């Protein structure tokens, strides 16, 4: 059973909060991982490693670092679930 976009957003926000100490509310769809959340490429890969496990999807490493905003990641995961 695929998760809804808002469920994916909430799950992703949880991972980002755990990894960075930022409040989950700051992880909004329009937030840029690099510019707004100060997440570098290794942290991004860490977050996507956890996301693969949480959402039971495969996020190839080259895709993981090309996701720019939180919405990009939500879209990628939603599509990968389908």
């Amino acid at each position, binding site marked *: 059973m695929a998760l809804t976009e808002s469920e994916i957003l909430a799950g992703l926000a949880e991972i980002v909060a755990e*990894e*960075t100490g930022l409040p989950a509310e700051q992880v909004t769809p329009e937030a840029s991982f690099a510019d707004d959340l100060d997440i570098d490429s290794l942290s991004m*890969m*860490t977050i996507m*490693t956890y996301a693969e496990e949480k959402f039971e999807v495969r996020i190839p490493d080259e895709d993981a670092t090309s996701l720019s905003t939180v919405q990009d990641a939500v879209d990628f995961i939603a599509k990968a679930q389908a």
Partner: protein
Amino acid sequence: MPEVVVTGLGTTNPIGGNVPDTWAAALSGTSGIRTLDNDWAERYEIPVDFAGTLKVPAGEVLPVRDTKRMDPSTQFAVIAADEAWADAGAPEVDPERLGVVVSSGIGGVWTILNAWDTVKEKGARRVLPMTVPMLMPNSSAAFISVRFGGKAGAHAPVSACASGAEAIGDAVEMIRSGRADVVIAGGTEAAIHPMPLAAFAKMQALSTRCDDPQGACRPYDVTRDGFVMGEGAGIVVLESREHAEARGARIHAVLAGVGMSADAYDVAPPDPSGAGQERAMRLAVADAGIVGDDVAHVNAHATATPAGDLVEAKAISRVCGESVLVSATKSMTGHLLGGAGAVETIFTVLAVRERLAPPTINVTEPEPELPVDLVRDQPRALPGDGPVHAINNAFGFGGHNVALVVRSA
């Protein structure tokens, strides 16, 4: 050759989360040893259920972003480095003249073992991308170099339980040889994990006094039965005297002499003759331009193993005579492995600065033939009122011997 002075001190360890708290706890004879809050002893049949865990957990000091990207050993080193750097007055120094020498006995053992658990349980895709930079034994040196912008070189000399002292010795040489004006140096360890506990226990190196953890580490006592694992870090800021004086820095002490040797005897126990330890001390004393009788105090390696303590005490007496005041601070902190030599260098610096030798706790029945003057339950004043010298000893499995001579400023 430039004289090397100590201008900054920092630590986090089982008896204190910083230098002032640690020194106060040491002078009052506080044990940092606790029964562990887990079921390792029962679950894995480890004969030891206690250790010296940090007094102030690293997660209470560092932000999440740091703790997620650093092995615990590096977290401890960074906490100590932050304190030492601030204590030194955050010196303004050309980055190419700022060096780092920070080591560990074991390295990122938590990171290594957690990553292997992940591979076994979940497969290679679940391994985190920071695993390699976190597990490297040079990780603490690298993180500290990045954090403070040290570009003169970042090194991590590994010599088991002598690592922290060897790092400080190498830092002295780095300044003397002209490669750097300021060096951040020390050692760290975070190995209170069931695997190292099991492995050290198998060597019969650990005390198994589970019914009395605070009384378990008993250096020089006839009932001593092994060392107690501790964790933590010690970091010092070393500087050429010229650089320190030009910026008006407060000088804690002089790092006056470095002596190193190898037993070439066995990969685990020390040479029972103590010849290698004696030679390290003699070299350090000669390097400081003094004689053994000038040494008023020794912070001994003294881990409380049945074999090791007396070998060292006899070597100390051969170099410094029988009236030298000897303290074994591991009785309070436990054995910080790669962090030990650095934390104990800090104790030695404070001892000459305050002219006070810290106590050795848990000695109820000292070895009858102990050829040195052991400082027991209370601190004791170092004699005289002129410049005072002290030695910090640190020895490691593999026969690594390091002695550092510290002189009052």
